[in-house]
C-alpha cells in the first residue's frame, strides 16, 4: 500500500460502489445479483483475513454465517425486538463469541487437522440448527418475515425496501467492512498475521503470542461472517437454513481463491464471477446446474496455474511493470563500501530484570535425552554480561540442541536455566524473547513472501508491543520508534538498499544477514548466533565478523561456528562441547593448544590447530 496516498484504496472503493448501479446493469447484472455479490464479498473479507492473510484454511465458515443470520432473524421475527441494525450487530457479536469458543478447539491444531476440525464443526452446527434448535430456527423452513431496515432521521424516514435502496444499504456496510479490514491488515496485528502465515515458528520466536493472534483472526472472520449472515436475512426478508450448509463454506472459499486470497477484494471479484456465471448459465443458456461444473473446472485451473487468483494476477502484473525502472539505481548504491562500525546499533532494551552482579545466563546440569540417546548431558554453563562467548565442537556434539534449550524451543529433560536472575527453564520461546534472549538460526527462518522491511518490522514489533496486544486499528506507522529501529537494523546488516525487496529475491549472503538482523531487531540483551558464518564467502565472512563486533557493544553474545579463525578473532572465551558434554573452557589461545580439543577434532593427531 502506498503511504503517500493513504486513502486511495478507500476512495476508489467508494467510487466503484457509487458507480456500480449505473454500470453493472448494462453488463447483465440484476440488482438482486449485485446485492448478493456484496453480501458474499463482505462475508469473504473476514475469510480472507483468516485464510489469505493468516494462512488458516477453514472449511467451517458456514457455522458463523448461519449463526449470525439466525440470531438476527430470530430476534426480528420471533421476539418483539424491532431494531434491524441492532439485531444484525447482536448476531455478529454472537457469531464472534461462538468463533472464540470454536477457535479454542480448532486452533489447537494446524494444517490439515485444522481444516478437518472446521469441517466437522460446521457440520455439527448444521445438525444443531435442524434438530435440537429447530423450534427457534424454523428447522428446514428457515425464518420468514425478516423486516427491512427503517431509519427515522426525524426529518426523513429512510426505508430500504426496494432492490436499489437495499443496494445503498448493503454498499454502505460493505464499505464500512472494507475500511475496517484495510485498517486491520495495515495494523501491527496485520503484519504479525502475515508473519504467522509465512513462518509461524519464527513469528513465535520473535516474541509474538501466535495462538492469540490466530484466535484474533478467527474471531474477526466469524464476526464478518455473522454480520453478512444477518444482512442476508434482511435482504431476502427470509433467513434460509441453507446458510448453515457445507456448500456455503465451500462457496466463500472458492470465491476467495478465484478472486485472489490475501487481497481483501478477491472475494468480491470471485463472487461477481460466480454469481454472474450462475445467472448466465441458468437464465440465458438454460443449462441448469452446469455452471457449477464450469466453475469447478475454472477453480481447479486457477489453483493449478494462478495461485493468487484474478486480483493477485493483476497486482503482480502491475508490480512487474512498475518496478523495472528502480533496478539500476539500486545496484549502483549496492557497490558502496559497507562499514557497520560507523552505525550505532540499537541498544539492548532494559527490561527490568534484576541486574545483580554475576552471570547474565547460567545453566545447571542441563540434560536432553531423546529415548536412550543423550544429546546434552549435565552441562554447567555461565556467561557474564557483555561477554562474547564461542561454542565449538565436532558435528553431533549437541551445540544446536544446547541453543534450543537456552531459547526454550525445546524443554530440557532435567536441569535449570537462569537468565538475568530469572528461572526461564519452563518458559516458552516467545516469553524468553520478550525478556531479551533470542537466537539467529543456523538454517534461515525468514518470512519469504514479505519484504525485508516487513521482516524487520515484525521482529521490531515484538520488542515494541510485547507478546500480545489488540491494536487492530492502529497504523503500523504510528508505533513509536518502529521505523527508526527497522532502518537502523537494516543499515547495520547492510540491507538498506534492499528494504523493499521480497526476501525470496535476496542472495544467500543477504538472507544470512537478514537472519541476524531479525534477531537483532528484537533488541536482545543476550544474542545467540547459530553458525552465522555458515555458507558465506571469505569476503562476506570478514564483513559479518565486523558486523558482529559492532553489535556486541552493550550486549552479550554466544556464537556457535565451525570457522575457528573467525570465531577465535571474535570471542573472548570458548566452550568446547563433545558428545553432549563440556570438554573444556578457556580463552582462544588456550583452546588452540589444548590437547583434549585437538584429540576431539583430529582423533589424536597432535599439532597446532589451523
Amino acid at each position, binding site marked *: 500500500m502506498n503511504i503517500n496516498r493513504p486513502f486511495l484504496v478507500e476512495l476508489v472503493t467508494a467510487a466503484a460502489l457509487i458507480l456500480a448501479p449505473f454500470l453493472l446493469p448494462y453488463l447483465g447484472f440484476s440488482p438482486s445479483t449485485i446485492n448478493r455479490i456484496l453480501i458474499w464479498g463482505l462475508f469473504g473479507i473476514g475469510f480472507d483475513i483468516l*485464510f489469505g492473510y493468516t*494462512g488458516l*484454511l477453514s*472449511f467451517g465458515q458456514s457455522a458463523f454465517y448461519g449463526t449470525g443470520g439466525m440470531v438476527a432473524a430470530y430476534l426480528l421475527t420471533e421476539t418483539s425486538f424491532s431494531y434491524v441494525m441492532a439485531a444484525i450487530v447482536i448476531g455478529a457479536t454472537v457469531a464472534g463469541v461462538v468463533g472464540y469458543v470454536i477457535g479454542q*478447539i480448532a486452533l*489447537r*491444531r494446524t*494444517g*490439515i*487437522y485444522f*481444516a*478437518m*476440525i472446521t*469441517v*466437522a*464443526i460446521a*457440520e*455439527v452446527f*448444521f*445438525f*444443531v440448527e*435442524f*434438530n*435440537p434448535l429447530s423450534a427457534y430456527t424454523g428447522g428446514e423452513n428457515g425464518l420468514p418475515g425478516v423486516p427491512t431496515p427503517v431509519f427515522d432521521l426525524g426529518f426523513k424516514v429512510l426505508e430500504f425496501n426496494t432492490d436499489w435502496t437495499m443496494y445503498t444499504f448493503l454498499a454502505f456496510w460493505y464499505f464500512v467492512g472494507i475500511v475496517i479490514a484495510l485498517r486491520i491488515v495495515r495494523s501491527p496485528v496485520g503484519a504479525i498475521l502475515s508473519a504467522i502465515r509465512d513462518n509461524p515458528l519464527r513469528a513465535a520466536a520473535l516474541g509474538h503470542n501466535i495462538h492469540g493472534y490466530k484466535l484474533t483472526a478467527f474471531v474477526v472472520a466469524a464476526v464478518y461472517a455473522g454480520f453478512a449472515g444477518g444482512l442476508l436475512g434482511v435482504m431476502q426478508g427470509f433467513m434460509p437454513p441453507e446458510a448453515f450448509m*457445507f456448500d456455503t463454506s*465451500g462457496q466463500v*472459499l*472458492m470465491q476467495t*481463491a478465484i478472486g485472489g486470497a490475501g487481497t481483501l477484494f478477491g472475494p468480491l471479484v470471485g463472487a461477481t464471477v460466480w454469481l454472474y456465471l450462475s445467472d448466465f448459465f441458468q437464465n440465458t443458456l438454460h443449462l441448469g*446446474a*452446469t455452471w*457449477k*461444473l464450469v*466453475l*469447478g*473446472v475454472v*477453480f*481447479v485451473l486457477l*489453483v*493449478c496455474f494462478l*495461485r493468487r487468483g484474478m486480483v493477485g494476477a493483476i497486482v503482480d502484473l502491475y508490480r512487474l511493470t512498475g518496478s523495472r525502472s528502480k533496478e539500476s539505481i539500486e545496484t549502483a548504491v549496492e557497490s558502496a563500501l559497507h562499514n557497520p562500525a560507523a552505525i550505532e546499533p540499537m541498544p539492548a532494551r532494559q527490561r527490568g530484570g534484576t541486574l545483580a552482579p554475576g552471570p547474565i545466563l547460567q545453566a545447571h546440569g542441563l540434560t536432553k535425552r531423546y529415548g536412550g540417546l543423550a544429546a546434552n548431558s549435565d552441562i554447567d554453563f555461565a556467561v557474564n554480561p557483555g561477554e562474547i562467548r564461542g561454542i565449538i565442537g565436532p558435528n553431533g556434539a549437541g551445540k544446536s540442541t544446547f541453543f534450543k534449550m537456552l531459547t526454550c524451543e525445546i524443554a530440557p529433560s532435567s536441569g535449570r536455566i537462569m537468565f538475568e536472575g530469572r528461572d526461564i527453564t519452563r518458559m516458552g520461546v516467545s516469553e524468553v524473547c520478550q525478556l531479551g534472549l533470542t537466537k539467529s538460526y543456523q538454517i534461515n527462518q525468514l518470512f519469504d513472501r514479505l519484504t525485508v522491511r516487513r521482516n524487520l518490522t515484525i521482529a521490531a514489533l515484538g520488542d515494541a508491543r510485547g507478546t500480545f496486544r489488540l491494536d487492530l486499528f492502529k497504523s503500523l506507522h504510528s508505533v513509536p520508534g518502529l521505523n527508526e529501529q527497522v532502518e537502523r537494523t537494516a543499515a547495520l546488516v547492510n540491507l538498506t538498499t534492499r528494504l523493499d525487496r521480497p526476501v525470496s529475491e535476496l542472495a544467500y549472503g543477504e538472507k544470512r544477514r537478514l537472519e541476524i538482523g531479525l534477531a537483532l531487531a528484537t533488541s536482545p540483551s543476550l544474542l545467540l548466533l547459530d553458525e552465522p558464518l555458515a555458507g558465506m564467502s571469505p569476503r562476506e565472512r570478514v564483513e559479518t565478523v565486523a558486523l558482529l563486533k559492532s553489535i556486541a557493544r552493550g550486549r552479550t553474545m554466544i556464537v556457535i561456528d565451525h570457522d575457528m579463525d573467525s570465531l577465535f578473532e571474535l570471542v573472548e572465551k570458548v566452550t568446547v562441547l563433545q558428545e553432549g558434554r563440556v570438554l573444556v573452557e578457556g580463552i582462544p589461545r588456550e583452546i588452540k593448544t589444548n590437547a583434549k580439543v585437538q584429540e576431539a577434532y583430529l582423533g589424536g593427531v597432535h599439532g597446532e590447530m589451523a
Partner: protein
Amino acid sequence: MINWANFISQCFNGLVLGALLALISSGLTIIYGTLGVLNLAHGAMFMLGGYAGWLAYTYTDSFLAAVVAGSLFVMIVGVVIERLIIRHFYARPQEDQLLVTFGLGIVFVETVRFFFGSLSRTVPPPASLVGITHLGFMVYPTYRLALLGIVAVALLLLYFVLYRTRIGMIVRAGIEDSAMVDSLGIDVYKIFMLVFGIGAMAAGFAGIVNAPVVSIAPDVGEAILVQTFVVVVIGGVGSFPGAIIGGLIAGEIISITSMFNPGYSYIMLFVAMTLVLVLRPHGLLGTAARE
C-alpha cells in the same frame, strides 16, 4: 426403557457402518500418510464408485460386475489425477493441496450430476443375499450381514497388502520417512501413484458395496467425507489401525445415538472428536511424527 432387541440390531448397524467407515478412512489415511496430501475429493471418489458400479449393473445385471467396475474405475481415476494433477502439488503449500482436491471433488460431483441428474439411484443386492436372516437372538437383513463380511475381507486384504508384501513395506516406510525411501533408490513416484490408486479404490469399493443399503446420489460423498475426517482425527492421521478403531467407534456412536434421536448423532460424534483432541491431540493411535 431401552428395547434390547432394537439396541442389539443398532449395534450391528454401527458395526457395519463402522467397518465401512474404517475402509474409506484407511484409503484416506494411507494416501495422507504416504503422500502428505489430504484428499478432499475422497468423498467424491466414494460417490464415483457407486455410480460406476450402478452403470455397470444396468448393463450387465450382475452385482459382481458392478463391484469390479466401481472399484477399478475409481482406482483408474485416482491414478490418473495423481499423475496429471496431484503430483505437481507435492512441493506446494498444504493449503494449495487442500484447495485443488476440494475443487476436484466438486468437478466429480458436478460431472456426475451433469450426466445422470440429481435423482438418487439404487443397486439391488445380489439375489442370494436378499431378505432377512434369523440369527437366533435377532433377525437382520441378509445383505447387511454379508456387507460386514465383505468389508472385513477388504480390510484384511488391505492389511495383507500393507503388512505382508514388499510394496506394503515400502509404503509403510514411506509413511515414516518418504525422503529416506527415495534415497534408497526406490522410485517413490511410482509408489505414490499406486498408493493413490489403492486409496481411491478403497473409497470406490465402499461406494458400490454400500449402494444396496443407501441409495446413491451425486452429493452422497459429502457426509461420508465429514465422517471420515472424524474417524481419522479420532484414530490418528496416517495410522491404518487407527482408521479401523476410529471407524468402529464412529459407526457405533452414530448408530446408537440414532436410536434415541438421529439429530444428535453428529453432535455426539463431534463430542467424541473434541474429547480425543483434548486428551490425546495426535489421535488414539497417531504420533506427532506423522503430521
